[in-house]
């Protein structure tokens, strides 16, 4: 437990000291919220979709969460190259608790980032559908954060340096984001597209956020919760395994 706590604390300390990083990683979601929200809003309204900002805000939140989470996970490469990883790996403590501590730390950071975006979207005009479900959205925020931090950790355990980083962002994280229903409704999609969005775990995260925040859903909250939890556990197990195999 001490190991998990101290690694969690380390991630948080690093995050809180890096103001540039906090602000920097808000840029992209903000741009999406403003450009797409206001740019596509009128068309969306004409198509009888309703308020696009309300629809988009949960998707943009998810975007901030998955990028921050993945990056926190991938930071292991940083530690590996700057030597700090060795310090943790020679310590008399299990690799699994090191991996869990780091991942929980990263997930906490990504959760904070998601909440900051939520606050910003209020300013942009986002109004949640007030109900008792709103607190449940925190569960979804945290689960998405955990899933993608664990994913980042798992991938980083296989990588020696940052050369593959662009590859991961452009061929894994970006597609997961764009093909998830973060930006568009999942109803009435062409068949192949429908299949892709259905096997994308992020679709369930975003659906869960929409269900709890604006009371609109495609799969339904319970399906979302079950799928998201299962995938997160699987990725955590794979990540722990890969992390425990690291040799320096």
């Amino acid at each position, binding site marked *: 437990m001490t190991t998990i706590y101290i690694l969690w604390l380390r991630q948080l300390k690093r995050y809180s000291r890096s103001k540039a990083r906090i602000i920097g990683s808000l840029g992209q979601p903000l741009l999406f919220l403003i450009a797409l929200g206001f740019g596509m809003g009128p068309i969306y309204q004409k198509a009888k979709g309703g308020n696009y900002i309300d629809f988009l805000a949960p998707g943009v939140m998810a975007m901030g969460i998955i990028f921050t989470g993945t990056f926190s996970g991938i930071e292991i490469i940083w530690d590996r190259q700057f030597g700090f990883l060795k310090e943790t790996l*020679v310590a008399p403590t299990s690799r699994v608790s090191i991996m869990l501590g780091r991942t929980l730390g990263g997930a906490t950071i990504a959760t904070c980032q998601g909440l900051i975006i939520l606050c910003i979207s209020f300013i942009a005009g986002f109004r949640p559908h007030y109900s008792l479900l709103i607190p449940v959205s925190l569960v979804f925020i945290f689960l998405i954060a955990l899933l993608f931090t664990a994913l980042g950790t798992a991938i980083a355990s296989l990588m*020696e340096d940052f050369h593959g980083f662009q590859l991961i962002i452009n061929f894994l994280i970006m597609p997961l984001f764009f093909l998830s229903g973060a930006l568009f409704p999942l109803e009435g999609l062409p068949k192949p597209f429908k299949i892709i969005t259905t096997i994308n775990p992020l679709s369930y995260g975003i659906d869960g956020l929409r269900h709890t925040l604006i009371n609109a859903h495609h799969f339904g909250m319970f399906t979302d919760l079950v799928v998201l939890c299962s995938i997160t556990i699987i990725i955590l197990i794979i990540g722990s395994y890969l992390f425990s195999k690291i040799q320096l």
Partner: protein
Amino acid sequence: MENSLSENSNIIEVTGLTKKFGDITAVNDISFSIGRGDIFAFLGPNGAGKTTTIKMLTTLLKPTSGEILIDGNNPATQQDKIRRSFGIVFQDPSLDEELTAYENMEFHGCLYRVPKDIRRQRIEELLKFVELWDRRKDLVKTFSGGMSRRLEVARGLIHHPKILFLDEPTLGLDPQTRNHIWSHITQLNKQEKMTVFLTTHYMEEAEKIARTIAVIDHGRIVAQGTSANLKERTGTSSLEEAFLKLTGTTIRKESADALDRMRIGRRLWRRNRR
């Protein structure tokens, strides 16, 4: 019974240790033993297998074959016991630069489960010992190379290890700082009877500090003994001459992997920034 046995035996026993990376044999069938409280120096040209050996002794790498016993324990089966018994200063820096000196110490103490009161007390003692107590609240990224090294030595001692591994701890430091670090270490060796295993490129350091010296080249130990032994055997007057006689004068080819290149890049970047 078991205790008295391990008290008498050597603290490190290595027999037939071999490590292969694909076709390359980095460490080739080496055997040595180190007595309790000894200062043992591992000398060798670049790429001779020094760091690989340290990594195997400290459980970071699994040997291809051979046996290691550290304080009577086998790294394959009693990993945690061994990890608790040593402290290490790596060849490359291994501090978290975004944390303060004190936080780095605290982090280490927590990882090694040193109880809070003892931890606080030891951190204070050690930071004073390496003369960094006044800088404890500063981020490590503001430290010079020598200060970081001293902090790493202090960090490696929080859990009172029986063995201290030092992989080229004085590389790139000025003579004053080197002298400072070694005087700390020899003092600890005398006071706490702590065994020291070091690698270095500076022959005069090894000659002055180490009681036993092993020369390693191409993954094999080519000579072993006291500094006087080695000079006598090679018919030379200094350890440096003895070393060159044993290992030849050709400059070693070293292959840099991605990690090394990154480190070099970072070092240059940091230097430019200062």
